Structure formats: C-alpha cells, structure tokens
C-alpha cells in the first residue's frame, strides 16, 4: 500500500488538476466540451471512487465506454447459462454475472430456485469445483476482455491437458479494438479521444490503438490509480492543444507497445476471432473470441447441444445508449427509479464497474 499511496498523493493530484484546468482554459471557446471516453469499466469505477469528475473543468467530460465485461454480455448468453443450470450443470462464474438479467431471469434467481452457482475469484477454482463433484457437469462462464481471456485460457489448457472431463466453457469473450472502431464508425457517437484501458493494454499492447490515432483520435493508455487517470486526461488535452493525435503510453510501468506475447500465444492457440453480440452495440464482426473447433470437447455449447440464444433485452433499458456514450446514465428513464443496484434492470447497473452503478453510487458529490 505504501507503493500505491504514491499514486494517490494529494499534492501531485492538485498539481495535475491545475495543469488540466490550464489546458482546458486554452482550448478554443467555440468548440463544445471535450468528450473523452474512458473505455474500461475499471477506469469508470476508479474515476467514480476518487471523485475525479468533481475535479475536472466544466468543458472536459468523461464518457463511460463499453468496457465492463459484464455490462456488454448479451441477455441470450445468460439465458443459455440458465438453461445449462436447469439441465443440472453447476455454473462457475465471476461474482457480478449472477445478477445480470437474461430475458426473464438471472442466475441469482435460479440459484434461489435450486440451481448450483459457484461464485469464484479465480478461474482456476473451476477445476477444483469440477474435481469435487466428478459426476456433475460444470460450466465456467468464460466472459471478459483481453485481460481476463488469458487467465481463462490457462485453465482451458489445464482442463484439456489434464483431462477434467466434466468441465466445459461457455465463451463470450470480447475484444476492445473492434468495439472502439464500431464506436468511431457510429455517426451518433461524438468522441474526441480515448482514455485507453490499463490491463487490456498490458495484453494487447499500446500499438493496438494506432489505427484510431491515425484516424485523428488521441489515444492515451493510463493506469487505474487516481494520478494515472488525471495524468492521462492531461496528456489527452495536451495532444488536442497541439493539434496532434498519437498513441501515448502513460502506463509504461505495466504496458509494453507489443503487449504480452505469451498471453497472446496462449489465446491464439485456444481461441479464434468470431462475430460477437454486444449488449447495446449489436453484433460487431470479429469482436469476440470463441473456442477453436479442435477444442470442441471443452465447449459447453457443443457438449450440451445448446448454441447461444438470441435473448431479448428489456426494451425500456437504455444501457445500449449509455455504453455508446450517447446518453448519461441519469438520462435513462429507468435510472434510479425502477433500475437500482438492488434491482438492476440492465447490466450497466449490475456490475460495480457498470457506468450506471458507478454513477448511482458515486455521482458527482457536489454537496
């Protein structure tokens, strides 16, 4: 913690805040507010927890992007997992998936009705659960971005090589760069720059954002600590003042330009790019990862003969527009009334990383 406290230093924060205010004041008055998208859910959380929005000038807006893995998981995926549970499989999952709404139910509700749902902290626990109950099928809910995929792939590797016959994986991995491209292609979405994810970038490398910088969008990779984020915002404003756009890696203590080659290799061995359905963004070509056909023995969809379902999101839920940064959470008619962290209607309210949950919990504290 002594190490981390250096990234939370009040004096350094005050200095960065002053530099941000200075840069923002020198931006042209004609242009509207600068809209920066923090892509990653952990950034959304960190921004909210540290009260960073209250520190920014009024012409600098932070927009939460589609980077919470739970939030972008389509309802049909939950429906499929529920069906597997109803057929007797034990579900092993990261915690915040249990409250994500499917078309008509959640894994938490199914658990109350008798389904077996193990919440895990590490994907490796899936193996222990499967070995504890060898006569029962176990399905690991393999969701997440490039950060999570390698850890799950390592477990796939163990399951495949050590022969854990009763463990399979229901995959819905998502990839960040195709989603960013989809946002840039959407004429309804006006963004000036990307604050790029920290840990995703540790895997894919800062170079992955070059195509977006080449299209004129400043891309700054920032860590998750409060000073990292302020520093990232400051770097973006500086690029804009200079009229430039390039990939700037401000998290070089963790992120390399080329990323983590071993993780990329492991992922490529087990997974292949597939078209993926994103809650709110729709289907984006080659924006997900699925198991390669040669590993169909550990593919839950194959094992249960259950391809992922379509599913229907709640039509009144505007998570899609929130994920695209088109509206702020409070502009959704369900926000804070029928949709709260206790009774979430949409996934943005479910995960603590979701932009609605973060805004509900931590909204700008101007007392």
């Amino acid at each position, binding site marked *: 913690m002594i190490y981390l406290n250096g990234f939370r230093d009040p004096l350094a924060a005050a200095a960065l805040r002053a530099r941000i205010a200075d840069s923002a004041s020198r931006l042209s008055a004609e242009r509207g507010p600068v809209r920066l998208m923090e892509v990653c859910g952990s950034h959304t959380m960190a921004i909210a927890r540290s009260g960073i929005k209250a*520190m920014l000038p009024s012409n600098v807006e932070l927009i939460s992007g589609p980077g919470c893995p739970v939030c972008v998981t389509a309802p049909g995926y939950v429906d499929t997992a529920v069906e597997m549970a109803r057929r007797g499989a034990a579900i092993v999952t990261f915690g915040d998936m249990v409250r994500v709404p499917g078309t008509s139910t959640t894994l938490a509700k199914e658990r109350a009705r008798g389904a077996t749902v193990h919440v895990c902290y590490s994907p490796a626990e899936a193996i222990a659960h499967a070995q504890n109950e060898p006569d029962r099928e176990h399905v690991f809910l393999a969701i997440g971005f490039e950060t999570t995929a390698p850890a799950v792939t390592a477990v796939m590797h163990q399951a495949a090589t050590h022969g854990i016959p009763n463990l399979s994986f229901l995959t819905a991995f998502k990839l960040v760069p195709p989603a960013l491209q989809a946002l840039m292609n959407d004429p309804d979405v006006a963004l000036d720059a990307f604050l790029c994810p920290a840990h995703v970038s540790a895997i894919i490398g800062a170079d992955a954002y070059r195509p977006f910088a080449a299209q004129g969008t400043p891309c700054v990779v920032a860590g998750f600590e409060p000073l990292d984020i*302020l520093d990232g915002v400051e770097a973006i404003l500086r690029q804009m003042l200079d009229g430039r756009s390039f990939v700037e890696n401000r998290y070089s203590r963790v992120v390399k330009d080329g990323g983590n080659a071993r993780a990329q290799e492991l992922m490529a061995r087990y997974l292949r790019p597939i078209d993926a359905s994103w809650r709110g963004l729709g289907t984006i070509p080659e924006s997900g990862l699925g198991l390669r056909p040669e590993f169909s023995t550990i593919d839950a969809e194959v094992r249960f003969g259950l391809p992922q379902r379509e599913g229907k999101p709640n039509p009144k839920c505007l998570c899609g527009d929130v994920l695209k940064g088109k509206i702020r959470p409070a502009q959704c008619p369900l926000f804070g009334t029928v949709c709260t962290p206790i009774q979430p209607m949409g996934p943005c309210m479910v995960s603590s990383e979701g932009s609605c949950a973060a805004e509900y919990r931590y909204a700008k504290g101007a007392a």
Partner: protein
Amino acid sequence: MSAAIQLAHGGGGALMRELIDAEIRARFADDALAPLPDAAILPSPGSRLAFTTDAFVVSPFEFPGGDIGRLAVCGTANDLSVAGAIPRYLSVALILEEGLSFAALRRVLDSIQATAAEIGMRVVTGDTKVVPRGQADGLYITTTGIGELIDGLRLGPEHVRTGDRVIVSGNLGDHGMAVMCARESLPVHPAPKSDVAPVHPLVEAVASFGDAVRFMRDPTRGGLASVAHEIVEGRPLAIELDESALPVAPTTQSVAEILGMELMHVACEGRVVAVVDNTVADEVIATWRNMPQGRGARVIGDVVDGKSGRVVLRTRIGGQRFVDRPSGELLPRIC
C-alpha cells in the same frame, strides 16, 4: 464422551444431559444465579434496561482473530453498549449440526465463557438443539442480552447537530475481510484478522461527556456507510467524511482492493462510530487512544448543513463523491 455431536444429543435423554452437564453447566453455572434454568430469575436493577437479540451464522465459525462464540457475545454486548448500556445478562441458544466435533464445540464454548467474563456479562439461561447433518453449517448461535442504561447518556441520531464531529475508534472492515478470506480460502499472507472485541470500555470511558456524545453505533453489517446514512437519513443534515482520515489496516486494504470491495461497506465487530460535539472531539479521541480498544481512534468527518440525508466523501486526491449504502450481497468483481 463421544467425539462428535449426534442427533441424540438434542433428544432430551441421557446423552443430552451429559452434554449439558459436562460442557455447558460446567462452564456457565458457576455463580449465584446458578444452575442455568429455562427461565433465569434476575434481580431488579433499579434502572432502565436495554434489551437486544441477535443470531450468528458466520461461516467459517472459526476465523483469524475470533470465532462464532466470541462474535456472539461481543455482537450482543456491543449492541447494548452503543445504546448507552452496561451489558449484564446473556442467554445463549445453540443450534448444533450433527457431526460437529466436540473439540470444536468446546473451543466455541470456552470462547463464549472467556468473552463473557472479559465483559462482566453473565450467561444466565440457554437452550441447545441438534439438527441433522446438512441443516446447519457446524453451529449457529442465537443470543439475547440485557443491559442497564448508564445515567447521563442520551444517544440517538435525533441529537446530532451541524458542527458535530464523526469519530471512529479503529480500523475499518477488518472483520468482514478476515471472514471473507477465510471463507474463500484466499491465499493472503498475512491474512486480515477480525477486530471482534467488546466495545463497552470505550462507551463507559466517554459517559462523563454526557450530552456532548450524541450518537454511537457499532458498524457491523453494512459498515461505516450504513451507520453514516442512519445518522442523517430524513434529517436536514449531511455527513462529510474525509478519505485520508479513514483508518485502515494495510493488509485489509490490500485484500479489499484486490476484491474490489469498499471498506466503508465492510463489517467491523469491535469498533464504535460516534458523533460528538466539536468541543469535546479532541478529548474523546485522547481518551480512546489511551485504551487498547481505541488506539486507532480518529476524527473522520463532520456533520454539515446541507442537502438532507447525504453522505459525501472528500477523496484523498481532492475530489468528492457520494457514499452509498451497500446494495446487499458483496460480490467480488471480475477484474
């Protein structure tokens, strides 16, 4: 004596008698109120009483820093203490799972005995039931406690005023994170240790400040955040907490950060959150810091005018945000 609890230990026959005599009466029926009857006859104290009941189902029932026995006695006594009462009498009902080892039962009973003695509380009645294997998680305990109100303390959120200070007696969230690490067998070294302890010395030490002490609560489930909301809910007051003043143990904070938990939402079992008049805040802090239970005492925030019912955190880096109540089940984040 057999090595494990059998259903017959709850059946009312010879085995049950043996269990009660050898394990329970032997520990608790040693004073003038004697032999642990179904209904204890207590002397009338001549003061107003505080009365509380509680149920304990913690899993695992032994964890770093304590066990379900110490937790049950402290939890009950602390509810009485923060109501401004001196804990006096305790009832203890045990629900034992078939197959529970006698060794574990003895450890828990020893812990109840030692903790009650530490507080000066007497176990005066109780009950024992045994349920079939699988219907309880080792053992559950329910308690009822009676305490005598301390003269001169009038505690309650209705006494809180603008300008009062918010104080906490020690580190936040140690109990909750210790239990979670133990429950999930998280490989954390050193593991967080529960703060479970009696708080009555802290309360009694500040009784002489009288009305300048407005409110006290032990921040158990829901943590500091729930207590702060309880203080201002429905009143034209807000609480501003200062993040850099919140006392936290480094190990506990590390685990909370890894799991994505908010320590203000996590339970303590041996702390007091107090609201006191600004003029006595320093004296209360000095008093508590001289006591082993209060070494970590700090002013953590202020009661301010303003939008009613709000709890605001001034963050370490100079931002601010609202502090919400926890929303139920504490779920670990995915990344």
